[in-house]
């Protein structure tokens, strides 16, 4: 009973603390918190906003699952950002070169994205297994190489190609054919709701994200590989003694994580139709936040992804109503993450203490039964 209360108390506590902190932040600069929260909530109650939230939550969720695969074996893949960008680029480039029937075209694009993402992540995996390079540093460096090197290089190439005539809309890879764009699923949502207005499109990758979540759950909890992965995370020495090859697990987890990161590229490709000069950045880090908030649990991460997407999207309305600065949303994201992380830590400790005292009591009871 106490255990359940504890696991519920942590997120509730984090939420309450976040509301307190953000309210203080709003008050400190003379904004009316009630008005600001009210504006955000009423904006989010519109169907079109909800479509935007789902569209935003999709890459968050994929990014979170990618990070969580590593986290479950204490492997910190901070490089989702770079992996997704590289995968996005290759998928767009190759998708733009070929033209195939729709299903095949999309399949090729997805496979390319996953393969590239997993290879880029595998680089960090090899550095760790072969050379003992800490994956945190190496993935951060690989992020910088992807952003500072690859992206900057492409931008130069594109600009050189088009001479003085370039504009931000003409830059980028060749637009891919309609057949390569992952279809939108407005029809599916409209079964339950009224027609979606304002030309909003619900990304079909939402279904893939849900599928990835289900597969993640099955893989971790129902397969040998998942067991090995969790065992390596909980106690690497015991896992090794149990015959689980640690190096192969590191590499496999890294590459799997990178493959999921690659799928974020497919989401963005379906949205933009090409690799643009200004791909959205920061998805990797927000994914890590979502994974931490959702405790690597498929359901928890879905909730956290929706929460982050809600904050991102609904705060947009503050620009027009002027009730507060829309940046309050990022404050709330940051604070809820830090407080949740601490709250989970506290809850964990209390649970461990409970378990220890229960075990001690059980031991005492056993001794009393045994005749002296």
């Amino acid at each position, binding site marked *: 009973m106490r255990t359940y209360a504890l696991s519920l108390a942590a997120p509730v506590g984090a939420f309450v603390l976040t509301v307190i902190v953000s309210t203080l932040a709003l008050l400190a600069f003379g904004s009316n918190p009630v008005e600001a929260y009210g504006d955000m909530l009423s904006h989010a109650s519109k169907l079109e906003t909800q479509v935007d939230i789902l569209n935003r939550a999709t890459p968050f969720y994929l990014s979170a699952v990618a990070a969580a695969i590593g986290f479950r074996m204490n492997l910190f893949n901070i490089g989702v950002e770079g992996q997704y960008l590289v995968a996005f680029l290759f998928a767009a480039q190759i998708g733009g070169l070929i033209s195939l029937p729709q299903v095949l075209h999309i399949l090729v694009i997805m496979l390319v994205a996953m393969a590239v993402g997993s290879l880029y992540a595998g680089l960090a995996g090899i550095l760790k297994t072969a050379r003992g*390079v800490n994956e945190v*540093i190496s993935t951060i*460096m690989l992020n910088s190489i992807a952003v*500072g090197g690859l992206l900057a290089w492409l931008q*130069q190439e594109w600009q050189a190609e088009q001479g003085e005539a370039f504009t931000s809309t003409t830059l980028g890879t060749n637009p891919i054919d309609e057949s390569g764009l992952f279809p939108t699923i407005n029809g599916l949502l409209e079964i339950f709701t009224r027609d979606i207005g304002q030309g909003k499109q619900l990304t079909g990758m939402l279904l893939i994200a849900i599928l990835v979540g289900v597969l993640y759950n099955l893989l971790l909890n129902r397969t040998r590989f998942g067991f090995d992965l969790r065992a390596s995370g909980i106690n690497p020495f015991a896992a090794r003694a149990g015959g689980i090859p640690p190096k192969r697990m590191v590499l496999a987890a890294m590459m799997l994580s990178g493959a999921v990161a690659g799928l974020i590229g497919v989401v963005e490709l379906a949205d933009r139709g090409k690799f643009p000069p200004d791909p959205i950045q920061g998805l990797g*880090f927000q994914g890590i936040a979502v994974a931490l908030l959702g405790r690597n649990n498929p359901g928890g991460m879905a909730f956290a992804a929706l929460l982050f997407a809600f904050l991102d999207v609904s705060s947009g309305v503050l620009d027009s109503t002027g009730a507060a600065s829309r*940046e309050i949303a990022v*404050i709330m994201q940051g604070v809820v*993450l*830090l407080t949740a992380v601490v709250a989970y830590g506290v809850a964990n400790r209390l649970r461990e203490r409970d378990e220890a005292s229960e075990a001690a009591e059980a031991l005492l009871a056993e001794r009393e039964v045994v005749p002296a």
Partner: protein
Amino acid sequence: MTSRLSSMPAWARWMIYAASGVLLLTIVQSISDTDRLTQISTSREMLRWAVPIFLAGLGGLFSERAGVVNIGLEGMLILGMWFGAWGSIEYGAWWGLLIGIVGGMIGGLLHAVATVTFQVDHIISGVAINILAPAITRYLSEEVWDSPTTSPQTAEVGTWDVPFLAGGTIFGWESPDWLLTASKWEIWYLSDVAQLSRGLLRSTSWVSIIALLLVPFTVWLVWRTRFGLRLRICGEKPAAGEAQGINIIRYKYIAVIISGGLAGLGGAFISTELSGLFQGGNSAGRGFIGLAALIFGNWRPGGVLLGALLFGYVFGLDLKDLDGTASHAMLLVNAIALAGVAAWAFSRRRVADTVLASALGVGALCWWLVADTVPSWWSNTLPYVIVLLVLVFFSQRLRMPAANGQPYRKGG
């Protein structure tokens, strides 16, 4: 050879390292068509890039010597950037630095509360701080300056010219500029040394001078005082320290807060001295590179400085290298350095390393031979590649504090 080097006093060893580094640059420069490798502006930019990297790395040293991994340095640096700019605009340059330090310390305090008191995983807490810090600065910028990413102009603390060597003034009397004279002689190698040294000694920011003085200060504080011994025991064997009655928790807190303060100073330096305003994203990952410098430097202050200068040199060279010739010459420097690594690995009979270093070295050499210039994206990428290569070849030789990153629980 190695034993003779290590028996020397530290300053002499450093002189030899520096002299041979410049010699390598001079040799490469004399067979390539650039003079930027040893120009005065190159060493000045090197120092300007290196200072924040070094300060972040030194922050990492305090924290990790006390057993707390600090991935959150980047976030603390960003807090320092914002608070430094704000303090500088509101109260003047020196107050800006101080307030920047306090801003970083707040980040450090958060990290300490999470990791030391609540025993959150160090990397998780650090990542959380890295996400929270830019959020805070965006919100504050929007509210204070009406723009989420930029501030008005900040004040500077000013610079100093070293007298005699770089023509500084003493009580209004302008001393001679010996290094300028020497660099005008155009003697091979000697003038190059003079130019590079002059870049470090002329119009040097006071913050850079403070940062450089922190090297001997840290050595003294962490390795020569009782405080330092206690701090290091937190990172090596906290249980033993506890048995001696040391309040491990308190020392960890102090170390992580110092760590945040140093990163904050680095951030304040970026906004007030380098860019002259706060600009979101201007940290350019220097907190992370500082961590790489910490690992490169084997958790020693001198090593961290060396790593920061190395990364700073590559970044700084890129900044002044619009036609790509200097970066092209750097390819040859890289090839020679990789040859050195290959020889070193060969002497230790490490086959895989020898092959890898030789292959990369030959690759760099071929590129140097084939091309006349290199594109600017390469010089942007090079520092990160160098970080990776350094870790690849040397990370097994390094020794981090034994209890680094491990949770500590009192009495257990």
